[in-house]
Structure formats: C-alpha cells, structure tokens
C-alpha cells in the first residue's frame, strides 16, 4: 500500500488546450529580455545587436526544423497554429487558383482550418468536408475518394484536439503526392508529442504551435516544403520577412522559447510518451469499471496523454461543476453561450446525450501519479452523485430503452 500522496488542487489535466511553459524555456526566453539580452532586431544587418538576434532566431529555427526533420529554410515563423493554418490554406488557394478551386478537408478539423475553408467558399472555392469514421479517423482512402481534377489542396489534422486520435498522415501524403495535390497538416496537437518526419512523410505544409509543447503562447510556425517547392501567397504584407511569406519583426524571445521547447521535446519525446501513456492507462484502468463509460475515438491510434470519455446518463457541464478539483474540458460546448454539443463528437456518430456527457482529460509533462489518482477519486464520486440525481440513470436501471421515449425537445 502506498502512502497517501497529497496533491494541490486544482489539478491541471487540460494539456491539449495549452501547456505550462517549461522552466528551461522560461530561462532561455528571459535571457533575451534584459538590457544586456538579445534585444536587437533580427532584420538589422548593420550592427552586432541585429546579428545576435538573427543568430538566436536562426538557432531556434534549426531546433524546430530538427524536431520535424526538416531543413531550417523550410520553417516560416508565425504567431501560432491558427495563423499557420490560415497562411497555408489561403496562401495555397490564392496562389494556385488558376489550377483549380477545390479543397478537401475533414469535418473534425480545428476551427482555424474549418473557418478558413468557409472563408474560401465565400470567395468561390469548393470544399469537401470528409466524415471521419466512428473512431474519429480520416483515412487515406477517404481522401483518395474525394480528390478531383481541380483539387489543389487537402488539409487533414495530425492529431485531433478533442479526442486525441492520430491520423495516418504518411498514408494521406502518399495519396496526395501521387495525385499532384498539395497536402497541409494541422500539426498543432501532434508535433512535439509524437514523431513527425518531413523527410519520410509527404507533407507539403505543416502548422505548429509553441504553446502546445511547453513553449510560450503567441508563436508558431509553418513548415513549407522546398523540394518539391510549395508556393504561397502571403497573407501578411510588410517588410518581406520570412522570405516574403510572413512579414513582421521577429519576436526573438518568443522564437528562442519555441526553439528551446522544440529541443526539449525532441530529446525527451520517447521517454515522455511512455510516461504519459502510463498515466493515461492508470487513469483509465481505475475508472473503466464504472458502468456505461466509453472512450471516444480510436483506442490505439491516439496521443499518449489524451483521453476523451463519455459518462452516460450524466450531463457534462454538471460533471465539470462537481469536478472543481480538476481543470478539464467538456466535449459539450454548454459552458459557452451555445448549447450545442461538440461538432467533433457528433461527427463520430455520438448522439447528443453522449456528446453532452463527455470529458476530455489530457495529461502532460508535469502530471504526477498522485494527481491521476486524485482525479480518479473525484470522477468516481461525481459520476456516482450525478447518477443518483439522474432520472435517465433510473430509467436505464429499470430497463427502459431511452431511445423509445418521445422526448419533448425544447
């Protein structure tokens, strides 16, 4: 029997939404931010302050490139994955519009991809939104089936931000390359957590975010393949930074932070993913005996530290309310102004009530076993309490098939 471990609450189990900045990253960033630090403008060519800043920025570029096995010249700095997605999709669409105006993506992409596609539809482009399978996966075959003569781009995420499933982007890349279609991957959730190799994968554009891998918020990058060359129309115009693809003075301290975060991720990924998977399985093993509890998304093809679980017959928002010790996110968007359940879970074929009853737990670098065990206790207690309160649980216990009841929808 282990001695009881005290944990401080609330416990952060929302690493897919963002991560704390690693202390080593903070140290690297802080070193840029003093009057003795690297405060020059990386674009200043006429003095040592500029040269030092350029050196720091280029070092960071190499670190990020190394994480994804790319050439540093293929990395374009941006403000984050949302901007990277916008630049990749609009940039390709606007540059190649004479070749075609059809884009393929999936229904469970991040809003930064979906809303960008919607904008392109308003500009006269056509977009095919693929339905993922029941496990949440978008397969190479699905993409193949949607390609047309006039398709210029496919955009499929590496790992899904809500359910944590991981797509076969290497396979999709093969399909796209063979068809002469550019392939963009929203890598915000995958890069830094699982191996990504631009030498091996036929990915043309890859969006990345620093704050999902223990770097600072407000900085990201877009990988833009050089061979075969991918062209983009800039979305941000100005001083011609980043080879004209993204103007704006480079934020040295942010980029240095991103670079350091990438370096750490590259070095520690293998060990860390073993550790995170162990925490995830420890958590699941301790709650899976609760009746009517289900994992959403593929069991195997998933991020090591991510789990999305539906607790039937309890409602997600009240579940979160009774889990005050845990910082987690609900698959139901009830906490925002809309009462719509998650579009991702709906696309997997979950009915509204299961989508309303789902929670996303994501474990990370600083999660401890003690925290996981406390989370288990909280979850078990909350589910038991809310089921005691739930008329649906009563009916289920009495053997009533809820799908046969005519509910008065409101």
């Amino acid at each position, binding site marked *: 029997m282990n001695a009881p471990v005290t944990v401080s609450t609330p416990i952060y189990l929302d690493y897919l939404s963002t991560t704390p900045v690693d202390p080593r990253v903070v140290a690297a960033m802080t070193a840029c931010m003093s009057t003795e630090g690297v405060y020059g403008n990386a674009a200043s060519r006429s003095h040592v302050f500029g040269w030092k800043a350029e050196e720091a920025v280029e070092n960071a570029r190499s670190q990020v490139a190394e994480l994804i096995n790319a050439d540093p010249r293929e990395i374009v700095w941006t403000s984050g994955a949302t901007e990277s997605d916008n630049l990749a999709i609009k940039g390709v669409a606007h540059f190649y519009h004479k070749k075609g105006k059809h884009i393929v993506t999936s229904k469970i992409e991040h809003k930064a991809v979906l809303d960008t596609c919607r904008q392109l539809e308003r500009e006269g482009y056509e977009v095919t939104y693929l339905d993922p399978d029941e496990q949440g996966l978008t397969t190479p075959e699905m993409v193949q089936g949607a390609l047309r003569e006039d398709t210029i781009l496919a955009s499929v995420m590496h790992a899904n931000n809500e359910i944590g499933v991981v797509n076969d982007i290497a396979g999709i890349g093969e399909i796209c390359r063979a068809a002469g279609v550019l392939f963009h991957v929203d890598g915000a959730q995958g890069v830094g957590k699982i191996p990504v190799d631009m030498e091996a994968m036929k990915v043309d554009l890859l969006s990345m975010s620093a704050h999902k891998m223990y770097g600072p918020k407000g900085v990201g990058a877009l990988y833009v393949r050089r061979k075969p060359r991918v062209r983009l129309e800039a979305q941000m115009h100005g001083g011609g930074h980043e080879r004209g693809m993204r103007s704006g003075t480079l934020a040295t301290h942010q980029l240095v932070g991103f670079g350091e975060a990438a370096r750490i991720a590259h070095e520690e990924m293998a060990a860390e993913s073993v550790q995170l998977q162990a925490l995830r399985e420890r958590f699941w093993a301790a709650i899976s005996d609760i009746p009517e509890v289900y994992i959403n998304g593929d069991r195997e093809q998933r991020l090591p530290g991510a789990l999305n679980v539906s607790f039937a017959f309890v409602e997600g928002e*009240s579940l979160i309310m009774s889990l005050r010790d845990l910082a987690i996110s609900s698959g139901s968007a009830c906490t925002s102004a809309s009462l719509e359940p998650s579009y991702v879970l709906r696309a997997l074929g979950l009915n509204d009530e299961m989508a309303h009853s789902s929670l996303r737990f994501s474990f990370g670098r600083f999660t401890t076993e003690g925290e996981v065990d406390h989370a288990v206790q909280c979850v078990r207690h909350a589910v038991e309490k809310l089921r005691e309160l739930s008329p*649906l649980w009563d009916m289920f216990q009495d053997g009533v098939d809820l799908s046969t009841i005519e*509910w008065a929808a*409101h």
Partner: protein
Amino acid sequence: MAYSDKVIDHYENPRNVGKFDDADDSIGTGMVGAPACGDVMRLQIQVSDEGIIEDAKFKTYGCGSAIASSSLLTEWVKGKNLDEAASIKNTEIAQELSLPPVKIHCSVLAEDAIKAAVQNYREKQDS
C-alpha cells in the same frame, strides 16, 4: 461560468432528491426536457385529499442551474395547493437563483415540470 451561491448550494446539497411510486393515485409526475438538449427533469408531487402538495421529489439530468431550479421548486411547492403550484413562474425561479440569461431555459423547464406534474395528477383523479 460563475454560478450564484444559491445555485451552488442547491447543486451541492440538492433538496428532495428521489422518486415516488408513479402508480400511486396521490402522485403526480411531470417529466420534461430531452437528453439531446442536455436536460431532463422529473418532478413528482404527493397530493393530499384536500388538494395540498404534501411532499415533492425530483431527479434532474442537466447542468447545475437545471438541478438547482428543480431542487428549489420542490421546496417551494410543498404546502401549496395545485393552482398555486401551477402558477409559479419561471422568472421567480430565475430571480431567486440569479440565473444568467443563457440559463433562463432551466427555470422555464422547471415551470414546465410543475405544470406537467399538476396536470398528470389531475388526469389521474379524473380517470
């Protein structure tokens, strides 16, 4: 979202949770809402021969505001006659619990629930 102290109190210590035997003629049951919408309330009243609500029980699947609205309602209806209970307005519930605009539908559901329970009781007496 920040909940009011009263919502949290009802949520943490819900009053009158439970279930009466639906087959009993002195019981009126109102079940409103839908799982797909994220809330279902079951409100039951136990009515005396004199038409006074002697006891009330509820179970609610829904957010904290929905649970609090139904919990509060069970407290309010006890001791009232059927007409008084059926005339409780959702605005009174919303005001008592300081519900934000996005949660007003929870109080509407509670009003629907007591009306449905009273109606169910009356139908039982008529048949």
